[in-house]
Structure formats: structure tokens, C-alpha cells
């Protein structure tokens, strides 16, 4: 019934002798291995496809709707219309895709037991986590930049005169597009850290979604003054500031917000690293 050939009768491990082992574990080798891992499972392709569809597709729909409803906009709405921000709205949804991928990079290893094979091959655990973070971070950044640029250009092409559209040369536009991509990559790293801490896909996704979407709801229950002070620190607020070309009240400046996100990610990743080294695999 199996499609395998009968196993070799001669169990010689030396059938293809290896040259004697030299050198030691090197970061470059581990990075290569993590790259092989990331590109050899379908969940990567799916998550990145979801990321693209969310960012570009949703951005296109929202921009197209704005274009069609322009006639019904009030004067105030027309004056405050930010074509860049409209075309980047899909990034809000894309957060979930990049988060799930970041989480899966590590939790899928725990779920399948692969982590044992990984740590057997590379017992230097900080190296494993660093390589995972670097490879995923690089892929997330490249893909996020590609999709935010795509969303921007597709969105702008859907805005027909008299509706104003944006160009990259206008103030704050390039920053919004580039910054949104970086935001997604940093959020993905934050998610990877959560995944490494929690080690279970479902649990990690719950906590990630909680931090992203439930925290703002909880904050709503507080008095307005508290809300105003604290909501600046929420990822969603940071993203809102980033996709806007115009300064917004009650948010940190776009790059300040991104720095804050980087701090969140770093804190979670360092905690994950410490526990990764201490815990049994």
C-alpha cells in the first residue's frame, strides 16, 4: 500500500561518507535554515497572500467607495479628505495576517514537535530565536513595503477628478506609506515574541488580538481624561497617526509611535528569549 521503496537492506550510515566535521554552528547557517523553513510551508504563502489581499484589496474598496460618494461629502469632509490615509486603511486588517504569520513561525514548531529537531540541531537557543526573528522580520518588512506601496498606487488610481489624489512627493505621503509597512513588520515581530512566550497557536493569537483590539474596548470604560492619556500608547492609535499625512490630535508623532511599537516588540522578544533559554523544550 505504501508508495515507498523497500528500505535499504544494508544499514550502513556510511553509505555516503561525510567529510569530517569541522567548524562550529554559525549564525549564517542558522539563518539559511530558518529561511528554508519559512519558505517551505504553505502557511507562509497563505498568510502573505492574506496580507496582500487585506492591504491592497480593502484599500481599493475603501478608496473606490470614497470616490463614488464624493458628491455626498460635506465641505468639511472634502477639506479634511486624506487620499493617502484612505488607500492605506487596509493595513488595519493586514495587522491580523502579519500577526498570525509571526505567531505561526514559532508556535507551529511547538505544535508539531519540530522545535525538538530544531534545538537538537542548534542547541544555542538565543541563536535560534535571533535567526527566526531576523528572517521573519526581513520577509515581513519586504512584503509589507511591497503591499503598502501597491495599496497606495492602486488606491490613488481609483480616485478620479474632481476627487483629489495624492502623490509620493506631497508632504507626509511617502512617510505614511513607508511607515505603514515598517509598522506591520514591527507588529509581526511583536506577534512572534508573543508566540514564543505562549507556545500555543490559539492562545498566542487570542492574546495578540486582545492586545490589538480588546485593549481599546477596555479603555473605553475609563473616564475620558484617562482614555486620552492612555490611548496614545495603543498600537491602533499609532497606526492611525502613521497612515495620516496630517498631524492628528491625541496621538504621538508618527515616528515616535513607531519607536514605541519597536519598544513593545523588543520587550516581548527579550522576555521570550529569556524564557526560551530557561524552559524545557
Amino acid at each position, binding site marked *: 500500500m505504501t508508495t515507498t*521503496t523497500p*528500505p535499504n537492506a544494508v544499514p*550502513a550510515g*556510511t553509505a555516503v561518507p561525510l567529510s569530517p566535521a569541522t*567548524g562550529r554552528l554559525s549564525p549564517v547557517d*542558522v539563518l539559511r*535554515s530558518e529561511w528554508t523553513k519559512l519558505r517551505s510551508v504553505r502557511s507562509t504563502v497563505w498568510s502573505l497572500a492574506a496580507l496582500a489581499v487585506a492591504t491592497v484589496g480593502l484599500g481599493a474598496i475603501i478608496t473606490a467607495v470614497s470616490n463614488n460618494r464624493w458628491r455626498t461629502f460635506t465641505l468639511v469632509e472634502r477639506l479634511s479628505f486624506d487620499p493617502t490615509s484612505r488607500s492605506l486603511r487596509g493595513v488595519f486588517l493586514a495587522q491580523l495576517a502579519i500577526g498570525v504569520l509571526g505567531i505561526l513561525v514559532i508556535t507551529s514548531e511547538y505544535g508539531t514537535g519540530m522545535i525538538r529537531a530544531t534545538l537538537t*540541531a*542548534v542547541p544555542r537557543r538565543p541563536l535560534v530565536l535571533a535567526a527566526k526573528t531576523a528572517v521573519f522580520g526581513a520577509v515581513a518588512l519586504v512584503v509589507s513595503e511591497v503591499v503598502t506601496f501597491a495599496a497606495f498606487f492602486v488606491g490613488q488610481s481609483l480616485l478620479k477628478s474632481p476627487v483629489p489624489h495624492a502623490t509620493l512627493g506631497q508632504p507626509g505621503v511617502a512617510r505614511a506609506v513607508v511607515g505603514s509597512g515598517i509598522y506591520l513588520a514591527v507588529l509581526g515581530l511583536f506577534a512572534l515574541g508573543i508566540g514564543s512566550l505562549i507556545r500555543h497557536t490559539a492562545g498566542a493569537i487570542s492574546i495578540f488580538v486582545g492586545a490589538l483590539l480588546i485593549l481599546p474596548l477596555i479603555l473605553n470604560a475609563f473616564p475620558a481624561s484617562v482614555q486620552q492619556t492612555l490611548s496614545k500608547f495603543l498600537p491602533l492609535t499609532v497606526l492611525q497617526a502613521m497612515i495620516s499625512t496630517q498631524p492628528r490630535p491625541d496621538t504621538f508623532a508618527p515616528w515616535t509611535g513607531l519607536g514605541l511599537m519597536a519598544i513593545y516588540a523588543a520587550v516581548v522578544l527579550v522576555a521570550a528569549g529569556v524564557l526560551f533559554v530557561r524552559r*524545557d523544550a
Partner: protein
Amino acid sequence: MIEARGLTKRYGTTVAVDDLSFEVRPGQVTGFLGPNGSGKSTTMRMIMGLDHPSAGSVTVNGRRYGDLPRPLREVGALLEAKAIHPGRSAYNHLWCLAQTNGIPRSRVDAVLELVGLADVARRRAGAFSLGMGQRLGMAAALLGDPGVLLFDEPVNGLDPEGIRWVRNLLKGLAAEGRTVFVSSHLMSEMALTADHLVVIGRGRLIADLPVQEFIAQSSRQYVRARSPEPARLAELLRSAGATVVAETDGSLTVTGLAMADVGEVAARNQVVLHELSPQAGSLEDAFMELTNDSVEYRGDVTTDAAAAARHAPVGALTTDPLSDLAR
């Protein structure tokens, strides 16, 4: 060469591995035997640096696993849980492991060929049968052509052909001078495969001896006697120098006295015998006896004598292992 010294692992209040010391030498298959939950997998995970010992240490080739410069080139392992992402192909699974230790692609192809998975190497491992998955695990263990190999219950779920293949593989690897450490809870399997045995029960070392010695000891015979007056017969046999255990079914298990002598003692004292038969314990019985005792011995506080009495049916097994137990 694997050396464990005082190896201990606690999970909360559970002591999974308890002050375990042993050596696994090259050139032979060393069986790691113990009933379910006795700590075999935990020990193997500690050898591989996956679990941190609560106390004690274990080294491979004289170093802690984490200090090996190219671990896969020295140690290969097939551990209990399948360590394979079901969405990845067999080839990519091995290739991503190979890359970390500077192992070339040609070696990946070679081990796939060796375990008979070359034709399905590009298929997702999730679609593999149990046996194919086990072979992929074997391929991963052999990837770096290591001198030390660990296998945690490698024949679990395999069909007879697969079992024979694994058995020959292990023997072949040992014959090449490698250190082969293989766990099992089946004594009969180990009798066919292993040259040396490390037996544990409840995380403790019970025996560390050549398989031949274990077989010789456990094939000792004993005598079963049945009588309407079991208590009196037992008394008489004890005064004649035998060790007697009263079984729950009313029979007596007698060691240390030949069957003819048991008959003569009965006749001389006019005790009626309903049965007098020679018994030979199977290897499996001997193993169970050995490990059950370790469970009992630790479960309640018994004297050495009481423990010795329980050991009686397997005769000489009491000598070596018990001295370990009673330490």
C-alpha cells in the same frame, strides 16, 4: 559515549528521573528499558539538551550537548514525539536541519535513499503513514553520520517488516562502532536487539548489565506447589532453606530448593500435595517483576527482607538489582 551522573528531573512534585547514573558505550546496542512513565523519554530529552536536569549532569563524548560544536555530526536522535512539520516535505525537513550543521545536499539524498523515502521526498510529511514518519525520523537521526545515536521507542507502531528493519539498522550501526542507545518497554524486543541493558523503574536505576546475564538470571527456574495446608508446607520448606512466597491463588512459589527436594520434604512430613510443577519465568515476567518491585518498593516503606521475598520468584535477579535499589 554517553555518561549520566546523578541525573535527576523533577516536574513539580513528580520525580521523573531520580539520581540516575550510567554509561552507554560504543560498539554495542544498549537497551534502555522501563515501564511506561519510568522516565526514559525524559532522560533522553536531558541527554539531548532539551530538558534541563534538576540535578546531576549528562555528557555526550565528554561534553554537555549544548557545547558540541556541530551537534548533528556527533549525535543523532529519534525522539518520542514526531518532530516534523506536517506541511513540509521530507526533503525540506531534512535540508533545513542539514543546513544548520554544514551538511551537504548529497547527504540528504543519501539518507532518504537509505530509509527508502527517496520516491516520496517531495511530498508533504503530513501525508506519511506512521511507518514512513518513523523512517523520516530515522533519516534525520542519521543525517550527520553521528557516532552516537538515541532512539526512543523506534519500533512503536511499526509492522513486523519495519521492526526487523529497525532491529537490523540498530545492530548495523553498533557494528560500525557507534554508540546506540535505544529505549523500549518490551523486554522481548530488547532481548533480540540489545547487547547491554540499562533498566529503570520510577526514574531509578534498577539494573545495568549485559543482556546475556539478564537472560541467564531470569531463566532461573522455580517450583510451584499446591497443598491443602499451604501455611504448614511453607513453614517446612523455609526451615529446609527455601524461599517461599504464598501467591494469592493459594499456591506456593518456591525457590532455592529443587523440585524433588520439595516433594521429599512434603512426604517426610505427610503433607498432601495437589500440585508440584517446574516453572520458568519468561523474560517479560522477569522484567515486570523487576520493575514492579521498584514501584512497590518506592510506594510504601518495606523492609529489605520483604522486598527480597517479593523478588524471590526470579531468584538471582534479587542480588544485583536489589543492592542498587537498597542503596
